[in-house]
């Protein structure tokens, strides 16, 4: 199920980005780690419980203004659903 546009995604307990000084930027999770770059990093950095899904979409559509807006939206929704299924993300 795609996430609600008005909900606030937030990294789940025990999931966090490594420090800004560390490269490559990585989403650390129980027993796993995901390397992030470009859009995936832009999305995860905004999963702080303060941005709504809609705000994240709007932000990334601005950053990637050459991309088709609908495609940006569907990619983000797909990525958030994937992170949720992996228990890396909660929606509040």
């Amino acid at each position: 199920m795609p996430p609600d546009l008005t909900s606030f995604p937030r990294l789940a307990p025990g999931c966090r980005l490594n420090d800004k000084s560390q490269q490559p930027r990585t989403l650390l999770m129980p027993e796993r780690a995901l390397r992030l770059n470009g859009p995936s990093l832009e999305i995860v950095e905004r999963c702080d419980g303060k941005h709504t899904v809609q705000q994240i979409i709007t932000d990334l559509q601005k950053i990637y203004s050459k991309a088709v807006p609908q495609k940006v939206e569907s990619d983000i929704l797909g990525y958030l659903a994937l992170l949720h299924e992996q228990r890396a993300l909660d929606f509040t």
Partner: protein
Amino acid sequence: MTTELSNPLALIAELTHRCPLHCVYCSNPLEMQSRANELSTETWSRVFKEAAQAGVLQADFTGGEPLARTDILELVRAARAAGLYVNLITSGLPMDEAKLAALVEAGLDHVQLSFQGAREEIANEISGARSHEQKLRVLEWLKQHRIAVTLNFVIHRRNIDQLEEMLAIAESSNATRVEFANVQYYGWAFANRENLLPTREQLNHSVEILKRAQERLKGKIRIQFVVPDYYAKYPKPCMGGWGRKLLLITPSGDALPCHAAQVIPGLAFENVRDKSLREIWEHSPAFQKFRGEAWMQEPCKTCDRRDQDFGGCRCQALLLAGDAAATDPVCSLAPLRPKVDAILAGMNSAPRAEIFVKPNWLYRPNPS
């Protein structure tokens, strides 16, 4: 063919061999280190920094019981300060509410709480201690913190029929991950194997239950299931390949490619008191020994699966085939697979009354 050397991803830090439990399948070696030989806070702190510099992302604090270290908070802080993701693998026995709060405050990311069963009677029998009630208390305390929780149920013949009850414990907790890990047969578990191996019927039934649970709990709890590899068709990619992803530091500072590597004769281990982690990872002869493919025998040497399972487990090859460089005998292609089949056939054809009688366990003692 040469294999490009990758960075280690996780550091398994065996902080101590001291433990309030005496589990009959403990992964510690039969000969344990005493408290007097344990690494200092300073040495561990240096090791965490060196690990992060070498590319390690995660530190698994284990033991024994890591909370037996009186400097556990300093160790958590040091590992976090080095930039590592800190995972505490604990029995929960020495935990209390204040200690848990302090650990979270110190930066602990993830707690892995071990369970020996779903019911008090079997859990206490297996751990040789009154332990089960305390674990349930720890689960309640964990609900008060924003921290990742994994429950680790160690599975064998005498508790595999309690999976539904174990799932109920997991669902009543705030765990997002549950491991149902069948015992692997090394060390203490090898000594107690005759009484731990589940029957084929038990195993098949457990797979059905856990597949249903995986589907039902999708998005809530991730369920991971490790089958006993004696029943598998192909061996497990032990440690993700020898010297490929993980390294383990013993309480006294020896760097090992896996928990059981000390059983392999002729391997000399280097110590973090003498050398840096990077040096050990790159040059230690023990890490080089089974790294890559050059050491492989047939059928591994030309097998299509050699880059998936890396020939299986070296320690199991030694224990069952008497040769650490042999194909893991649990592999259906291994020349010695008939030996594993004979062990399974003997157990599966024995009368049920006989194999479910309470055994004379060989309990793991506690080092001084």
